[in-house]
């Protein structure tokens, strides 16, 4: 089923307007491009429903077919439907909605986020080894930085915070800026190909406008 002509035209028109608005000052263009951006938010909001439909389908099937761990899926469905109903019927500022948000959602979120600390420890232990010259540079830089950021570094060597601050101000800025400049060019190139319909993997097609090997 090939249906790419109209979508690509839509991409070109919308993208063209928004891009032109970046360069050219014209009141109608400004209005249109702002309107397009608003529409983007609205369409995205509809997409949220698609995501939820996917969740519902997968977990309903699991519950129905009594697959392994099906009862977790059942709980998921109940919470999903119940909490959505609460939010839509009583609004998200209602105290019941906020209670669930503050006492379940937030601690769950903060806890999972804090996994990062544990994972960083195990990743540092495993990865920061002097296997190659590059790995050694990475390791030394990370060590100096860690020592410079906490009181114990200062106990070991008075100027440790100064060293850390230098690394973060000079070479780190330079490295990240270099990467950013390169990536900007890549982003412009790829976006341009998408905008002109050359790269069309977002419609399931291949790049290059034709079949690729």
């Amino acid at each position: 089923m090939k249906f790419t002509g109209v979508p690509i035209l839509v991409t070109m028109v919308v993208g063209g307007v928004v891009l032109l608005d970046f360069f050219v000052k014209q009141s109608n263009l400004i209005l249109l491009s702002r309107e397009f951006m608003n529409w983007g938010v609205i369409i995205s909001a509809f997409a949220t429903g698609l995501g939820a439909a996917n969740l519902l389908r997968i977990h309903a099937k699991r519950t129905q077919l009594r697959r392994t761990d099906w009862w977790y899926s059942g709980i998921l469905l109940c919470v999903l439907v119940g909490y959505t109903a609460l939010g839509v019927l009583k609004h998200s500022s209602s105290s019941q909605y906020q209670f669930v948000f503050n006492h379940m959602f937030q601690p769950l979120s903060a806890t999972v986020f804090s996994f990062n600390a544990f994972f960083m420890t195990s990743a540092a232990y495993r990865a920061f080894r002097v296997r190659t010259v590059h790995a050694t540079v990475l390791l030394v830089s990370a060590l100096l930085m860690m020592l410079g950021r906490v009181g114990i570094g200062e106990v070991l060597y008075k100027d440790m915070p100064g060293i850390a601050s230098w690394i973060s101000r000079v070479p780190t800025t330079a490295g990240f800026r270099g990467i950013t400049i390169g990536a900007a060019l890549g982003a412009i190139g790829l976006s341009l190909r998408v905008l002109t319909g050359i790269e069309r993997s977002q419609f399931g097609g291949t790049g290059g406008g034709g079949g690729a090997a």
Partner: protein
Amino acid sequence: MNLWEIFQNIDRRVWYVLLLVSLFIPLVRPLGLPLSIGGEARDVYNTIEALPAGSVVIVSPSYSPGTDAEMWPQHAAVMQHLMRKGCKIIQVSLALESVMYAVRAIEAYAPKYNYKMGVDHVIMPYKAGLDVVIASMGRDIHALYTEDYYGTLTSQLPLMQSISGIQDIALVVDFMPGNTLVDYIKQIGSVYNTPITGGVTGVCIPTMMPYVMSGQCRGLLGGMRGAAEYELLINSPGSAIGGMDAQSLSHLLIIVAIALGNIGLVAGRGLRKGGGGK
């Protein structure tokens, strides 16, 4: 498996347990490790210290629970400092979950400094839109916030009556782990010449440094360390100073972990090489 191989293959759960222990001990029993105060935190302190009593300040706590361990101590320390100086405080939130921190700050410190709602401080409701909200705050703060968080019309609040617009704001202090501080600098600082300062998470320090160095941001509180430095500056030790000792130990743990892995690697390599040579 020889000793060197054991050093190289310690189970990750061992590290997890050690990490929890190293973070927990200093929280119960602070070690009191030395902490020097950086120039950026001092700049924030001096900026607030220079405000005359009665100045109106916008405080913008816009962080969420994921980062509150870093952001809340900064927010709390700055609020105490502002109240001690007798500044009027308008708290605005750019993140859905952050109004509760504005409320928490008031509940924690308003009674001590006898701050009254509507007169000495106001809490505004959350508005979605980040930089768009900031821009309209600059254009017309009264139009943006017609009601406060508790539903009172802002036109009836003495504090809001006393200001005509952004030009009457002496300082904006933003606490946000994202880009809003930059937005405040761009949309309010450079447009209306309102002084801007604030605090960010440790991760965002590098992003903010160019603005701090150019003076567009008057100093900066960076992560838990920034908060701890500020607690020292205002002489009111809080959770950040205790947290910094925990930081020290946990960093030390990672360094030990890296060292063990490498000792195992280098020594193991030496052994193997030696064995092969013979």
